[in-house]
């Protein structure tokens, strides 16, 4: 008998079906992966399995059984005895998934109090054991700390400890590694693998096929609430049946996809690349750049050159100092030591008044375009605000705004939309159009695709490549995603603890990393399995 048996599960909200006709089983010690992009219904499915789809959700199924027990008609208090006790649940991004006002020990203890009658003193020892079992060092010290005092990886481990505290036979992990960098991600995945080996049934939910590849025994691909593909990893990766699965696999930027476009169909209108006159000066150069906060060295003696016409990738884990370096290069912050030069001329040591006429040449595309837009502005207002600074006459603004939207693959109809009415990919396109409005030479892209689904990410990456050729842009591309950086970059710099630890042509660095940290990063990279042999 399977641990979990789901037959024909459907969840709908008033006016919309979130998931239709989903069937699968999970055995003890087995991992089922549910993969899909945002809006595919994967998280709703996960929540429906613990009875938390929401008050206005209608859940129906022909069968929903856990260990032979019917889950379909449970009362609220019966559900509470299932949650935590029989099914553990791990959410993404433990910074917001752990109560910031509680110690991690008390969060874990909560599940024990709820489901066992363990005495207080024994409970503390049990929590310490749990912390040890999920690989948290110094549990005696960590147990009384708060979420904000732990690193992202430790927080995620603590969250997992709280989910398995009462010994559930089934664990549901909803994007458990999404907010983590690759090295920590690999650690969390191996922790989940250990639990699977000990006999826990696992449902792993992710937008990333590469992440689930190493763990899943069975993969379900969802799109718009329906199953488009289901099978073993071997079937899914070597002979994907659905066109959507093939597109999803093709859209993952990796070492193998270097060069060709990620989105099929439209071939690049190979606008002949603008020939760059070889320049004597680097487009942007930093010398011995140093920045510290409260005695903490965030950027430590960084020398770098961004050559005219190249795409330079900057990789590093969160907290490595990438974003601070970008802010120093943009002269949004002043370094404690060192200088930045723009085309060989002073940049960081100008006064802001002197710098302002030069600012259009250097534009930023950030991770969260929504946060960089005034929510009450329409797209036309967002673009004309930028055009106001150019010397374009006012009567030509609308025409220029339309043209800018066409550059980024949008149309005139988007002019009257507001940021919230656009999808994540469309917002990032508008942010790029706004940057282009200034006719910049250099784009600094700080995690420009990190918040996007893989297929949207592919479109935006292709777009940046097209624009680079069309306008002869120089790009500094900052990302924690090695696959993305490898795909877009000519050269790459690896940043760790404020220092550039390795630098070189992207293929050389990825094929033959010299620095130990780079080697660790590359080893931790989840890969799509290949079944050629």
């Amino acid at each position: 008998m399977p641990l979990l048996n789901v037959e024909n599960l459907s969840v709908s909200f008033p006016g919309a079906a979130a998931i239709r006709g989903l069937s699968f089983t999970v055995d003890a010690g087995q991992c089922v992966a549910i993969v899909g992009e945002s809006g595919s219904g994967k998280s709703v499915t996960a929540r429906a399995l613990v009875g938390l789809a929401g008050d206005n959700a209608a859940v129906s199924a022909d069968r929903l059984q856990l260990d032979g027990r019917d889950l379909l008609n449970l009362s609220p208090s019966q559900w509470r005895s299932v949650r935590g006790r029989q099914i553990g649940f791990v959410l993404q991004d433990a910074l917001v998934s752990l109560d910031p006002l509680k110690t991690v020990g008390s969060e874990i203890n909560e599940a024990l109090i709820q489901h066992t009658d363990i005495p207080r003193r024994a409970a503390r020892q049990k929590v310490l054991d749990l912390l040890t079992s999920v690989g948290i060092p110094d549990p005696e010290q960590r147990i009384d700390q708060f979420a904000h005092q732990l690193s992202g990886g430790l927080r995620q481990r603590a969250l997992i400890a709280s989910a398995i505290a009462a010994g559930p036979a089934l664990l549901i992990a909803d994007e458990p590694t999404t907010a983590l960098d690759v090295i920590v991600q690999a650690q969390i995945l191996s922790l989940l693998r250990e639990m699977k080996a000990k006999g826990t049934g696992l449902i792993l939910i992710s937008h990333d096929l590469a992440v689930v590849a190493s763990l899943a025994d069975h993969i379900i691909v969802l799109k718009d609430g329906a199953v488009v593909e289901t099978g073993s990893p071997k079937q899914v990766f070597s002979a994907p049946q659905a066109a959507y699965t093939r597109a999803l696999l093709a859209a993952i930027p990796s070492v193998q996809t270097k060069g060709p476009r990620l989105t099929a169909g439209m071939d690049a209108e190979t606008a002949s690349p603008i020939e760059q006159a070889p320049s004597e000066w680097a487009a942007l150069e930093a010398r011995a750049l140093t920045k510290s906060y409260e005695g903490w060295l965030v950027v430590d003696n960084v020398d770098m050159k961004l050559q005219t016409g190249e795409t330079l990738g900057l990789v590093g884990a969160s907290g490595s100092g990438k974003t601070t370096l970008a802010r120093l290069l943009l002269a949004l912050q002043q370094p404690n030591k060192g200088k930045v030069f723009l085309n060989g001329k002073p940049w960081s040591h100008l006064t802001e008044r002197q710098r302002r006429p030069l600012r259009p040449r250097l534009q930023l595309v950030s991770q969260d375009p929504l946060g960089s837009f005034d929510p009450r502005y329409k797209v036309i207002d967002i673009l004309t605000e930028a055009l106001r600074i150019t010397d374009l006459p006012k009567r030509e603004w609308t025409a220029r705004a339309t043209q800018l939207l066409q550059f980024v693959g949008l149309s005139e109809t988007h002019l009257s939309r507001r940021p919230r009415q656009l999808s994540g990919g469309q917002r990032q396109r508008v942010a790029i159009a706004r940057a282009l409005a200034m006719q910049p030479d250099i784009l600094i892209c700080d995690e420009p695709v990190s918040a996007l689904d893989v297929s949207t990410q592919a479109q935006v990456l292709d777009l940046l490549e097209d624009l680079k050729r069309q306008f002869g842009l120089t790009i500094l591309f900052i990302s924690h995603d090695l696959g993305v950086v490898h795909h877009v970059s000519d050269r790459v710099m690896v940043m760790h603890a404020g220092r550039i630890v390795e630098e070189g042509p992207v293929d050389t660095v990825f094929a033959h990393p010299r620095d130990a940290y780079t080697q660790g990063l590359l080893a931790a990279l989840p890969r799509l399995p290949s079944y050629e042999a």
Partner: protein
Amino acid sequence: MHIARELLIRILAGAAVLWAAASLAFAILQLFPSDPVQVIYGADTSITPEVRAAIRADFGLDRPVWEQYQHFLIRIAQGDLGISYQQRRSVVSIIGSELGSTLVLASLSVAIAVLMACVASLLTSGRRTWLRRVLSSIELLSVSTPAFWIGILLLTFFSFKWQLFPVVADEGWRSLVLPVVTLALAVFGSLSQVMREEMDLALEQPFILTARTRGLSEWAIRWRHAFGHALIPFITISTEIFGGLLAGSIITEQVFGRPGLGRITLEAITNHDIPVVMGIVLLVAFVFVALNIVADLLYRVVDPRLRVSAS
């Protein structure tokens, strides 16, 4: 050690605020001078210029402004708020004799309102029940009804009609019931609205979903998780309201004929008794400065992220 240093900074900053308040009051007084002789003797024309000058000298009003200001600050620093023009008693003793009554009234009212707001929010946040609708309506009534009207209604029923509580007079705790209930009802609405809205917001957070997946009951989720997140804004508004009640429940005190700061404020203003007015201004400034420091300390108790880590 950090905390002690920060506390010292806050206290010094508070002292600066008090100094600024005193100076501003003094400056305004120079723009609109009042004549103590006029206050004391009214329109009595038999006062000779010599007597008038003597009285003014008594209050130090014959000296240059700068000297008066210096003298004024030194006196305040020594805790001497001067002598009332009218009552010929020290301002400190006038305020001291009335402060207790106001303090009891304000503390009890806020304590009861806080308790009611917490219970109401814990019972109704994150849900759409009939109880929530009823409580929301009561809150709306509380916010939109002036305190004196609540007081008059309570008096009409509980004193005149059913004669459960005394109308005026000081009869121990029984005479305290109606004024306390009046003020508590008047401030309950805004406290409860803030508290529930913050709890509703907290209940949307991912860590609440995590807590639910542990099998926690609705009550445990609200009491153990959501409640703490509502406390910071709640402390802010509670201390503000408490300060407001200390500074002036004038109308409520009038309705119930109670002694208190409200009454002496009113008298001092109508009689141009400037030393008393100044004393009350300084007291109110002091109360708000002190409450702000207390609130800041409470924030740290509630939210570990605000505690300065030793490392």
